[in-house]
């Protein structure tokens, strides 16, 4: 298994191989012998080259939270994995839905159905917590459908705009 993890501005490739809790992990030039015991969903007991570590872990979206000892680390899986890898799991994403970050109101739609959008192009402005937020496209795509109009109230999970990634065609 190969994992790409971002830590701040740095990017690390971690390769793990083996089974039954006996693993070999490689980060760059360094190789570690790992003995893994899953204590719970959020707790891993690790023996790394014979030294014991307890790692508390959680994941949400592309974020991976890890605490070992007093240090907490936030890693992010790069987006390219989700959108760019054609033929991979990401290719199964036939469409991409644009929703609000929190309950709010649609202030202005910046695109209409059929528009081609570039990476970073504004799609819709939503007002939440008394502040306006512009939602931008993270991909090159075509606007497939617009489900809400200006003035509409939107909730978490609502899809305001559906995009069809350009890379799919």
């Amino acid at each position, binding site marked *: 298994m190969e994992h790409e993890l971002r830590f701040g501005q740095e990017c690390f490739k971690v390769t793990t191989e083996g089974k039954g809790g006996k693993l070999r992990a490689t980060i760059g030039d360094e190789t570690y012998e790992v003995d893994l015991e899953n204590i719970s969903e959020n707790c891993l007991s690790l023996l790394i080259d014979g030294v014991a570590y307890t790692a508390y872990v959680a*994941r949400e979206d*592309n974020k991976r939270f890890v605490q070992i000892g007093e240090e907490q680390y936030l*890693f992010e899986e790069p987006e390219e994995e989700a959108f760019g890898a054609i033929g991979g799991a990401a290719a199964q994403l036939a469409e991409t839905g644009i929703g609000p970050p929190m309950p709010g109101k649609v202030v202005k739609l910046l695109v209409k159905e059929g528009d081609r959008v570039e990476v970073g192009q504004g799609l819709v402005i939503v007002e939440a917590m008394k502040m306006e937020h512009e939602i931008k496209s993270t991909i090159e795509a075509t606007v497939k459908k617009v489900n809400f109009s200006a003035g509409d109230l939107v909730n978490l999970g609502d899809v305001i705009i559906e995009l069809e990634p350009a890379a799919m065609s």
Partner: protein
Amino acid sequence: MLKKILVANRGEISVRVIKACRDLGIPTVAVYSEADRAALHVQQADEAVCIGPASPLESYLNIDNIISSAKERDCDAIHPGYGFLAENPEFAKRCEKEGIVFIGPRGETIQLLGNKIESRILMKKAAVPIIPGMEATSEDMPGFKKAAREIGYPVLIKASLGGGGKAMKVIEDEKDLESAIESSKREALSAFADDTLYLEKFLDRPRHIEFQILADNYGNTIHLFERECSIQRRHQKIIEETPSTALNRELRKKMGEDAVRVAEAAGYSNAGTVEFLLDQKGNYYFLEVNTRVQVEHPVTELTTGVDLVKAQIRIASGEKLWIGPEDLRQQGHAIECRIYAEDPENGFLPSAGKILFMREPFGPGIRNDSGIYSGFTVPVYYDPILSKLLVWAGDRNEAIKRMEIALSDYIVLGIKTNIAFLRDIIVHPEFVSGETYTSFLDDHFSGYRTDSDRRKFLSQALVAASLIPTGTVAPKAVGKKEEFITPWQTLGSWRVG
């Protein structure tokens, strides 16, 4: 004893009050805003009432809704906690008018002590020292010189209409006064279009020392020693401890007696805190009285064995004070760290959101007063305090070591907290040696480190991150709206170049 208590607050203090009520066998009613239905205090209470929308003005500060909820649920008393309505004299008076016991001092006492000028007059009458300063400006230089001599150097020049440190100067010696006054006048004139100046005693690196008091409804008043709360960020306390390293037996006795005199002069009843500033020479000056349970009250509980919240309730129900000074002594050392949902590595921005996983430290001498749990979503609408971590140990060094380990063992994943920041303060040599002043964080922590400085376990953490069980992620469900990847979910991590 009171029959049923409504707790007019939220978060950890609400949970704390509910626990005291449980100890006393008194049923509780929690109140909550629409944003707090899932909050811990709602789960802990016997009954709960929604008192309005998320906005504090419409819920936790809504006097009418709180009073009518108390009546509807047959409560004979209200505990206000701290913050929100706790020091609002109108709320206390309204409770009195409606025949509900307000667990705290009388409304008129809250009003009196909330007024800076009136309380300054009161302190003078009670012969309690206040920060010396000019009562009126002077027209000429001899007037300023005379005033400065009376106040005693170093003095601080302040502009009457001042703010933001403009025209403020510290003068150590009379020979520098004249030129400083002239320059401050020019600065004040250009900054505030007014060159009125006055002088005040300058306190070099003072400590914040406060005394806990308890007074019953019959005029009996005691103090339960001091707390030192010098570690502050923008006047917000973050670490508190007792005893203070700065007090000896004699000074403690003197300040404690003054605190009691303050309370008596104000006709105080219930629990309260008298705050002082203590300078390097052992001079102390009255700051203000907090007419409520203090956030940091547990350090006093741990060292004296007195449950202050239970004491508040017993006093409010009309009990005569059951302890005297002869029953009290300080045993061991206690430290409190306030756990906030904020990001010290990004300008202390508040960090709301879902706590994906948490694990509280436990063990001998560790106490958690908490308002959170794994899976709780910290709302954006309220104070970012999550919990208070406390330790007790035989002496200060043991307590510091215990706190260091307890903070390391406090795991909160999913939102940012100040836990690592608190730990860095606790192990700082100046903190360890007790050199704690209100300027401590400015002096030692003005440029705090960033995320990427944290590398001690980076390799091990990378391995762990690669091995996180997939069970922690909800299975993909086709057609479920939440499954759409929105730019908001990716925004925080999207970096170009």
